[in-house]
């Protein structure tokens, strides 16, 4: 059922209850996010060029963690998921979780991930 609404007179609490998004952050937040994303990217590329670190066990978890942080920052702040209605979060995280589980299942099935101490 589609309806046309005028939300101009709603209080913040009423807007929240109606599922209307909060005010988006401004320039001060956006440029800080851009700086953080740039610094993380520099860190990722920097560790790529350290042979001792690449050979260590910390390399893969470090890169995956940095990438996950970048991913989350863009989604939360630039895509405004931090400020939006929970239905939007569900619509995004639901398929993302299913897809990620499928990825790990396929990696396991094709022998890229091994459990326990098998050969």
């Amino acid at each position: 059922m589609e309806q046309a609404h005028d939300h101009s007179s709603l209080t913040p609490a009423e807007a929240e209850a109606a599922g209307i998004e909060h005010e988006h952050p401004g320039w001060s937040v956006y440029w800080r996010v851009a700086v953080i994303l740039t610094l993380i990217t520099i860190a990722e590329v920097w560790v790529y060029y350290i042979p001792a670190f690449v050979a260590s066990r910390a390399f893969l978890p470090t890169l995956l963690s940095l990438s996950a942080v970048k991913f989350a920052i863009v989604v939360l702040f630039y895509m405004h998921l931090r400020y939006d209605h929970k239905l939007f979060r569900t619509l995004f995280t639901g398929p993302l979780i299913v897809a990620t589980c499928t990825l790990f299942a396929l990696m396991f099935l094709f022998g890229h991930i091994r459990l326990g101490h098998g050969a």
Partner: protein
Amino acid sequence: MSATVSHHYSSTGLENRKIAIWAFIGSECMLFVSLISTYLIYKGRSRVGPYPHTPWTDPSTGHVYKAILNIPVTSASTFILLMSSLAMVLALAAVENKGKPQRNLGERILGNSKLWLAMTALLGIGFLGFQAYEFTSFVNEGLTIKTNLFGSTFFTLTGFHGAHVTAGVIWILSMLAIDFKRGLGPSDALNVDIMALYWHFVDVIWVAIFTLVYLIR
């Protein structure tokens, strides 16, 4: 935003088109994860080179192929795409705040939606330029989509992403044309927001591709 704007809201109280774009983004996540999965599954299983991170000598000719990935170039294109996301949020903010008083030069620059939309499109085109350069150099160095499993999965994954960036650039240029023709204002904020969500999604997918394909050996 306090302007009175009529949109089509569903029984949830949420705008239909915004629900649709999030559902679309969710489905796109599954598409890209399937492509990334295929790349990862076949990683390291190519019988012949060139390889992404290590050199390879062709036994029949003795020709030595260097590691094919060019991390500095891809790092630059990644930075460009991240900055395009910054330009896009500023474009959205400018459209949302159109009509509000601009007291100084800084506020006039931040409030110029045409500037930020054009900047986003230019950065997107810059990213595509880097990708065209990368694809061309790979082909010149002997890696095509038919060469080996790495080539097949790499070109499919990054090609799909490039196609999405191209669609995004066309969308942004269309919105820029509308802005020049009649001006974008708060009543257009939802349309720009939907476009921005798509653009940021293309950005986050590249965040994952950059790490999983280019940096992890």
